[in-house]
């Protein structure tokens, strides 16, 4: 294994091709994720149009403070990753590790807040199914809101959890790797994924927390 050539897999001609291919592949993957979440957003739209009042009423019961804190957490975490990607290109491994781990930690914090929220909702009887109870007028529409709430934020939380694992993994790997330069592209791709997860939340937040707050 000669030094620079070792970085390039046999099927590629040069490092540029390899990097471009990887980045392009990641964006295609994100494109599939857009459609995955997109179907859920479509479901939300359809049912919200059918039950506008019920959705207003239901959304007033989500924890807006927790939601806002979580939005801020993800934005900061995204920022950390963006800076980390930049520093990784300059080979500043210590700070890359630090930033990636901070981002992961923030992700974990996000999940903790989420868990608190879920717990709260379940105790208030908003978990759909047998235990669901809601005293207000249109409990059917409210239950549908919470079906969507749990499914969409749950799927998002799953993505966050995966992201936390990936970021932690690369954070450690960058520190320990023999040749951290090999990880530059990988860190970049992990970053793209993490920003995408952030974007999904940017849309979930207004749809589940900000609806029905106005007097």
């Amino acid at each position, binding site marked *: 294994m000669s030094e620079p050539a070792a970085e390039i897999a046999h099927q590629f001609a040069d490092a540029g091709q390899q990097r471009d291919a990887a980045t392009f592949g990641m964006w295609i993957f994100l494109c599939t994720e857009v459609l995955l979440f997109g179907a859920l957003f479509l479901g939300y739209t359809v049912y919200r149009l059918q039950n506008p009042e019920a959705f207003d009423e239901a959304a007033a019961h989500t924890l807006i403070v927790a939601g806002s804190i979580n939005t801020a957490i993800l934005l900061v975490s995204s920022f950390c990753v963006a800076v980390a990607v930049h520093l990784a290109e300059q080979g500043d491994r210590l700070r890359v590790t630090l930033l990636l781990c901070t981002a992961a930690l923030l992700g974990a914090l996000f999940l903790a807040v989420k868990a608190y929220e879920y717990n709260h909702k379940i105790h208030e009887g908003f978990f759909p199914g047998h235990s669901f109870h809601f005293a207000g007028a249109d409990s*059917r529409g409210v239950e549908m809101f919470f079906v969507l709430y749990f499914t969409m934020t749950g799927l998002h939380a799953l993505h966050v959890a995966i992201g936390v694992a990936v970021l932690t993994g690369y954070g450690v790997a960058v520190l320990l790797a023999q040749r951290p330069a090999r990880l530059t592209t990988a860190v970049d791709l992990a970053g793209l994924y993490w920003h995408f997860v952030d974007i999904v939340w940017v849309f979930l937040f207004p749809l589940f927390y900000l609806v029905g707050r106005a007097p």
Partner: protein
Amino acid sequence: MSFREAIELLTSSASEIGRSVDAIFWALTAICGFMVLLLGTLILYFCVRYRRGSQADRTISGVSQTPLEIAWVAIPLLIFLGLFVWAGVVFFHMARPPDNALEIHVVGKQWMWKIQHPDGRREINELHLPVGRPVVLLMISQDVIHSFYVPAFRTKQDVLPGRYSRSWFVPTKTGVYHLFCAEYCGTEHSRMVGKVYVLEPAEYSGWLAREAEPNSVVATGERLFLSRGCAGCHVAGGPIRSPLLEGIFRKPVALANGTTVIADEAYLRDSILVPNQDVVAGYDPVMPTFQGQLAEEEVLQLVAYLKSLTIERQKSP
């Protein structure tokens, strides 16, 4: 089935719309048959004439590609558009039942069809109809999706849970026809079948009279309206201020959220089962839900009763 019967079945339907459908079907068959023959002949001819080793002339001369390509985009496209419009027109006709149609209620459930005629007569997995009169089926399912299919009429309509659907036709030939459930609905889907009897009008009346029900659909609905307590609220000067329901059918209703809806069957059904989804403007959302307390047949009867209420009736008693 003999060959002649088969041809007969293929080419003749027993409803008005069936004739139009068959016309399109056979036009399609002719066009597509012609295309298959044309392409088949060309391919076979080329295969024989230009087989390896044949002496055929192979110098390519003056076949210009683009005009050909344009031709075989444009010509099919025009044919396709024609077919689309033709079939579309017939389809829209199918979707608009006439007002004077005989309304029959159909409730599908795993795995039977429960049918009720306006005068109250019920039947299961059988449907008796007078010939020559438009019939509209107002249908709903109690469980999963079914589909009401009478091949001889060329009509089919999915029957959904939680939502009314409609199918209409004019039987043109007396006889006995198949009734199938065409949407897969579970274990005995293939046994959710029945017979449609198309009778002369007089025979139909005779059939209705043979096992006459004491109450018509509307009368049953009225009794439900009284016995289930609807009438307790929906009267002028009742204990709870509630809208009067006379003449409501097909009228616009202003809702509390500022929108307006037309009071069709679906709206009436929802008003009974999920009253708080669309609250009428100016009223409190105090009407209790009747979800789980009324069978689908009963909801249909109530809806039929509400539809029958006209302004005049309100004044007369």
